[in-house]
């Protein structure tokens, strides 16, 4: 299978994301200005500071020509994963529910956290067991997941919480310890932690590979 990894001006994790994808299949980096995403089977929107995070994190990237193609791809059921800034972009684009606020501590965070797989049915979690805890790093300043009470209830009721921080490990004040969510169909997933940085024992964990393996399973 072939993963496409988006690159915006200000992206910084697209190379790691492509390396992670290459452990499962082929990977191609797609420039934000391209109107086509080619013949890829899955899309990863990586972390970083797209368009300098001007105005609000993720708010400008959603207007990129490549994002229009990604939105069409997602609508047709294609697997799309947003990591960190990519998660923020998907929320701003309305492809995922909720929004990301500055960390409660107001500090930049960089640490390994445990995240529990809540929904193991999505295109990016089906290689996991429900309830399994993955060890994956977070690194962000704007990662406090928020949804207004009504929307939050709907997210919980429809099983759209994909990941929760393990008990006591919520690093940023996210509501209901939510680390990642999925869309209703389950093909679009976003999370603040960085699975692409947890694909080699050298950096302490290979748990992140499970997300990329999941996409391969979803397409099989």
């Amino acid at each position, binding site marked *: 299978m072939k993963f496409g990894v988006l690159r915006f001006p200000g992206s910084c994790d697209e190379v790691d994301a492509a390396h992670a994808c290459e452990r499962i299949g082929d990977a191609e980096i797609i420039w934000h200005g391209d109107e086509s995403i080619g013949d890829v089977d899955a899309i990863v929107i990586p972390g970083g500071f797209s368009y300098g995070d001007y105005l609000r994190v993720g708010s400008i990237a959603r207007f990129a020509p490549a994002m229009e193609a990604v939105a069409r791809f997602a609508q047709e059921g294609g697997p799309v994963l947003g990591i960190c800034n990519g998660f923020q972009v998907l929320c701003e684009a309305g492809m995922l529910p909720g929004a990301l*606020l500055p960390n409660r501590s107001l500090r930049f965070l960089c640490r390994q956290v445990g995240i529990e797989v809540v929904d193991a049915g999505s295109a990016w979690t089906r290689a996991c067991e429900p309830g399994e805890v993955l060890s994956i790093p977070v690194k962000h300043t704007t990662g406090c997941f928020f949804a207004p009470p009504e929307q939050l209830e709907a997210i919980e009721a429809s099983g759209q919480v994909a990941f929760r921080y393990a008990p006591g490990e919520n690093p940023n004040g996210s509501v209901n310890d939510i680390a990642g969510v999925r869309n209703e169909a389950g093909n679009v997933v976003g999370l603040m932690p960085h699975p692409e940085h947890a694909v080699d024992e050298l950096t302490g964990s290979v748990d992140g590979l499970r997300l990329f393996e999941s996409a391969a399973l979803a397409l099989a």
Partner: protein
Amino acid sequence: MLARVLIRPKEGILDPQGKAVERALPTLGFEGVGDVRVGRMVELEIDDESRLPELCEKLLANPLIEDFEIESVE
């Protein structure tokens, strides 16, 4: 026309920036200041002002977490 849009965190939404400013003030001798909220202000020239609300909802503010207010300047 020249318009000014004020964007602020919605009531009840945690505003860590506002909190940080609030905590800093007493250390500078400014006592008795509370409920500090930090937002942003955007000024723009627009031909068709009837499109302003839509423009604010679609880009300048995120209606899930922010309120906006349009002020026409001239």
